[in-house]
């Protein structure tokens, strides 16, 4: 944080899509069909949701678990899967220490179990695939960005897309096998031989911002609040307009 940083206060970013009230208001049963380990801490859960109305990359859902005594726990999770994955959705969840819902998923859940979901929710962080997208994520903040990347690939979109993804080390990089030339990984603690170790910096962003695609980048930032604050300030300092930055933070 610098003393001179004063972003212009003119955010007012419109949502990208109209949200279906009906889908958002209805709880549906999601049946777990597959569990895939991504990293020591993160696991992908695949669900069959027969009545899923579809979503756009970047949207999230609300998931609820119900105990026998009627106690309910609900959480928001970003969708990891692309829209074309018919009647199936995927979530990638970190195992949060003492996590009530993530704890159930990581230690109890098995294929055949069912949970309830409602969504997709919120049109703000959605990316329909129409504008050049500069994606910046850290840790499991890469999840909604991966939905965008998968969508970009599945539809063979030619609108530019770049991903900067920060992880503590290569073994904690979620979806590591899926990244291609569009992705720049940033490692903060340990890195493979020959790669720098350190926090996301202006030098990582500079070459991407210098590409200047027609119409400019729409930036999507997702991660912990600390990361989101850091990354969004770097973007503004590098010239990315405040009203072209969308942020999704999690605690």
């Amino acid at each position: 944080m610098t003393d001179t940083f004063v972003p212009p206060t003119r955010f007012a970013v419109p949502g990208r899509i109209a949200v279906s009230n009906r889908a958002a208001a209805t709880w549906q049963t999601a049946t777990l069909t597959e569990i895939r380990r991504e990293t020591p801490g993160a696991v992908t859960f695949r669900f069959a949701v027969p009545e899923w109305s579809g979503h756009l990359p970047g949207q999230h859902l609300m998931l609820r678990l119900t105990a026998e005594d009627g106690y309910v726990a609900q959480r928001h999770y970003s969708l990891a899967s692309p829209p074309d994955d018919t009647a199936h959705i995927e979530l990638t969840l970190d195992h949060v220490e003492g996590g009530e819902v993530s704890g159930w998923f990581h230690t109890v859940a098995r294929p055949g179990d069912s949970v309830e979901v409602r969504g997709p929710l919120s049109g703000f962080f959605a990316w329909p695939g129409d504008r050049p997208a500069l994606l910046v994520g850290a840790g499991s903040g890469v999840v909604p960005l991966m939905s965008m990347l998968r969508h970009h690939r599945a539809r063979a979109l030619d609108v530019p897309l770049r991903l900067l993804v920060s992880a503590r080390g290569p073994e904690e990089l979620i979806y590591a096998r899926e990244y291609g030339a569009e992705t720049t990984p940033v490692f903060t603690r340990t890195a493979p031989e020959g790669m720098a170790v350190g926090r996301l910096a202006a030098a990582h962003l500079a070459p991407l911002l210098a590409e200047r695609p027609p119409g400019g980048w729409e930036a999507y930032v997702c991660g912990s609040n600390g990361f989101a604050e850091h990354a969004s300030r770097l973007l503004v300092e590098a010239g990315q307009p405040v009203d072209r930055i969308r942020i999704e933070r999690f605690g």
Partner: protein
Amino acid sequence: MNVTRAFTGRPRVDHAQLPPGQYDAGDDWPVLSAEVTPDLAPADWTFRIDGLVAEPRTWNWEQAHALPASAYEGDIHCVTSWSKFGVRFGGVRLDAFLDAVRPDASATHVVAYSHTGYTTNLPLADITGGRAWIVWEYEGKPLPAEHGGPARLIVPHLYFWKSAKWIAGLRLLDHDEPGFWEQNGYHARGNPWEEQRYSGD
């Protein structure tokens, strides 16, 4: 009821202050703004009320602080399902500002807007009668920028997206006009006790 196999949930006490579907965030206070945190100095902060009022008015930091001090001590609830108990905010009741501008009898709703351009809509009845504050202190210290400092609106009986950070003003209207999240699928009112999370709830 759709019971989840082998899900028991956290050990829990019967918490009468916990609205349905919420959990106690304890010491955590997650930050959930969608925009870049502005670096807004108190000297540059202003708060304006206009629209259906007899006398539109703008207050600066000193003028706002000259109004009678008032604190809120109680709970707050976020639509993302955390609640936080026994927090203390210091500032001024919104009534003190509204009294000065004399709202028209025709005013029924407001749009609250922030210095970032964020907006949220509220029925006038939800922010009068000692139910809303403009605050600049949290637990006796200046409100941190990422939580809306130097000053934010708080309407603690509604979900917290209604409590606009970096508050810049209120516009009084004779109709309801959806704000930022309300246009993005959230409920028009947001009462946690009725679980008014999304439009259609």
